Structure formats: structure tokens, C-alpha cells
């Protein structure tokens, strides 16, 4: 396997292919943030919940504008045709169903499609941010995550043991091993990442899944 960073870039690169042309897309913190640079910036509109549509990649990091950041508080750039709005208007876009896709990280995803990405049992719960809002409102939710935790435990589990983020189910999961989709409420493995074997996926996955190579939605 590659370094952690390589793995994340691999996931981000594959995830970028899921973006439908001219979609409005929200990128969560972590791996999702890496997706922007693999997307065709002429054919996607990035939305950030702190109040901007038309988020661009910062070309020269040293030249950042301290008044222009994304939801991860990272400096970004402004694409042509961008607009700004306040937080309530921004979440109205998310919660009202006007954001087509959200890419989010996860601590766990279970075979029912629930995700946990905001709290860890036994620890203080100190942040939730926009995760629950994105889950409740974005039309399509794509999870980008390392297949296993740092300790090698599967993140695709039978049932989340961490607190779930929403009762809304996610649509797609992209890891460094495979791409999964939920079809009719069943988890399907639809694609292996380059050089990965089915056996490798099976060994690292707790959740039940079927193999279903043909993509039904896309």
C-alpha cells in the first residue's frame, strides 16, 4: 500500500468522476476537500456552507485572502460567477434540496446506509458542524473514506456502533479498495480500485455486500 496521503488522493481522484456535469457540489472536511483539484472546474459549482457558491482552488497558496475560506477554514479562490450569502441562506440551499451532491468523510458506514461521522462514544461531543444538515438535504451523498481505521478495523460495518449522523441513508461509498453503491437498500460492490482483489475487500469489510459490477445509476 501507499502512504496515507497517496491513498487519500487516490480516493479523491476516483470520487471526482462521480460529479455529474454542472452539478452543485458540497465538499466536506478531509478527503472530500481534495476532490476539487481533480474536477473539471468549468463543469462543477462548489458550494461551501459558510456562504459561497463558486468555490475555486487557490492557485498560489501564499497569496490567500483571509476573508475567503471554505467550511474547513482553508483558503480558497473565487470562480467566475461566484456568489456569497449568509449562513441561513447557505443552509437553506442545503436543507431545501438545492445542492445536488455532497462528499463526506465517515468514521463508520453500515450496511443499511447509515453513517457515523461526528461523534465517538465515550468522548465529549464537541462538534457537529454542517454534517447533519448535508445528510438531511443534499440530493446525493457520497462517502469518501479510508477503507479501515488507523488500527486496521473495518469502517464498513454491519451496524454503526458510533452515533449516526442522520436517519437518511447514503448513496455511494468510495474507498482505496472499492466503490460501493446502495441499490434498493442493499449494499453493492460495483468497482474494485486498480490492483485490488475481491479477497482483499472481503477481508477488510465487516458489512455484507453483493457484487454487482454494472452500475445501475449513472
Amino acid at each position, binding site marked *: 500500500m501507499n502512504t496515507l496521503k497517496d491513498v487519500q488522493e487516490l480516493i479523491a481522484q476516483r470520487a471526482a468522476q462521480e460529479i455529474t456535469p454542472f452539478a452543485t457540489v458540497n465538499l466536506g472536511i478531509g478527503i472530500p476537500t481534495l476532490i476539487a483539484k481533480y474536477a473539471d472546474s468549468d463543469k462543477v459549482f462548489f458550494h461551501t456552507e459558510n456562504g459561497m457558491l463558486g468555490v475555486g482552488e487557490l492557485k498560489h497558496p501564499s497569496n490567500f485572502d483571509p476573508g475567503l475560506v471554505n467550511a474547513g477554514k482553508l483558503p480558497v479562490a*473565487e470562480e467566475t460567477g461566484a456568489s456569497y450569502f449568509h449562513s441561513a441562506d447557505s443552509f437553506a440551499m442545503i436543507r431545501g434540496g438545492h445542492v445536488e451532491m455532497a462528499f463526506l468523510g465517515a468514521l463508520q458506514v453500515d450496511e443499511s446506509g447509515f453513517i457515523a461521522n461526528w461523534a465517538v462514544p465515550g468522548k465529549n461531543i464537541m462538534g457537529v458542524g454542517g454534517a447533519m444538515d448535508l445528510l438531511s438535504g443534499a440530493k446525493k451523498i457520497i462517502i469518501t473514506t479510508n477503507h479501515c481505521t488507523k488500527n486496521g478495523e473495518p469502517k464498513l460495518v454491519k451496524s454503526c456502533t458510533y452515533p449516526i449522523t*442522520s436517519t437518511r441513508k447514503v448513496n455511494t461509498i468510495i474507498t482505496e479498495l472499492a466503490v460501493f453503491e446502495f441499490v434498493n437498500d442493499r449494499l453493492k460492490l460495483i468497482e474494485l480500485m486498480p490492483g485490488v482483489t475481491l479477497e482483499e475487500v472481503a477481508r477488510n469489510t465487516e458489512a455484507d455486500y453483493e457484487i454487482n459490477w454494472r452500475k445501475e445509476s449513472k
Partner: protein
Amino acid sequence: MDKIRTAEEVMQNVKSGDTIMVGGFGLVGAPLTLIDELTRQEVNGLTIISNNLGEAGKGLGILLRQGKIKKAIGSYFTSNREVGDHFNIGKLEIQLMPQGTMSESIRAGGAGIGAYYTKTGVGTELAKGKEVRVINDENYLYEEALKANVALIKAQKADTLGNLIYYKTTRNFNPIMATAADYVIAEVDEIVEPGELLPEEIVTPHLYIDAIVKSKLILTREGVVER
């Protein structure tokens, strides 16, 4: 009617036990000068409504260290690890809200809406003890409006009447907090004459603003500096 004041003057409106809204997303769009002045006040038992509670020892983080905050209402306190420490020893109450629910509740507070129903949070730990209502076959959570005694907000420019415009993503919570407090103080980088802001570009109309304070501390590429 001159609304231009100094930070010292306006902070007389903050009393112990008050609920205070503070704009900004982290330091971006935060009223740094007003927060700095607030840390100099002899007040305590404050409830702070703000997305974050600064960073350890910075911004609202100073107020936390001073023990002046009784309760924090926000969506993301993770950026200041001391928040958890204060919570653990029982010195701080926390009300964690999804960021969209927090925003919507502030807007509701300003708009005379008593409460509303949102799908966000249904079935999660943050919904514990909260009413669920089925509307058009979907589950919604009951959420009440948020209001405050004082709001500290940051804008780019004000005219002397109090009309405001904002710079890029510094807008964030500021325009909604401007509507939801009894006394609203706008810290701004520039003050112009009425008529210099175009009527169609004004984001916060002046009827929301009680006082205008010129910023002394600003966020630059080099961090927070005195101007």
C-alpha cells in the same frame, strides 16, 4: 442620529448573565475588536451564541479562560480543546446544534418565528428529548428560535445610518445575528456616507443596527494585527 461609538462605550450594554451572539466562522468575519473589548469587561455568567468558541487562548477562547462564559451555544467547538476541559469540570454548559439549525434558529429569532420544524438531526443523539412531528409523511424535529441581548457582528463597510455590506465569506453568521438581538453592534473596517452603498447591494438595512464601531484588530494573512 449618530451611531458611531467606541468599543469601550458600546460594551457598557453588556451585563452579567446576558446572552450574546458573536459573528464569525472561526476568526473569519469575527468582530475581533469587540471581542477583545469584551474580555476587558467585568462581566460573568454569559451565554455565548457563536459557531465556535475561538481557539485556545484566542478571541472568545480568552473569555472562556477568564471563566466569564456560563454556557456556549454553537456547532463546532472542536477547534478549541479547552472547551472540553471546562465542560468536563462542570464549569461550562454546552448546547451543540447542527450548523444549519443554529443558523435557522437565529434567523427565526430575528423574524418573529417562535419555532420551526427541520429534518436535520431527526433520529440522532442531538434529537434526544425533542419533539418529532410528521409533516407530509416525513419526520421533522421541533426547534425553537434563538435570541440575544446583544449581538457583536463584523461587516466590511457601514454607512453612517448603519447600512452594511460584507466582504466575501466574512458574511457568514453576521447578517442573521444582526436581526436577532436587542442591541446590535457592528464592527466595520470602513465608514462611508449614506448613498455611497448602492440600495440594491445593501445586505443589512440600517434598522437592525444600534451602534457602529471602527475596527482596530483585523485578520490579515499574517494573522490578527492592530491596524
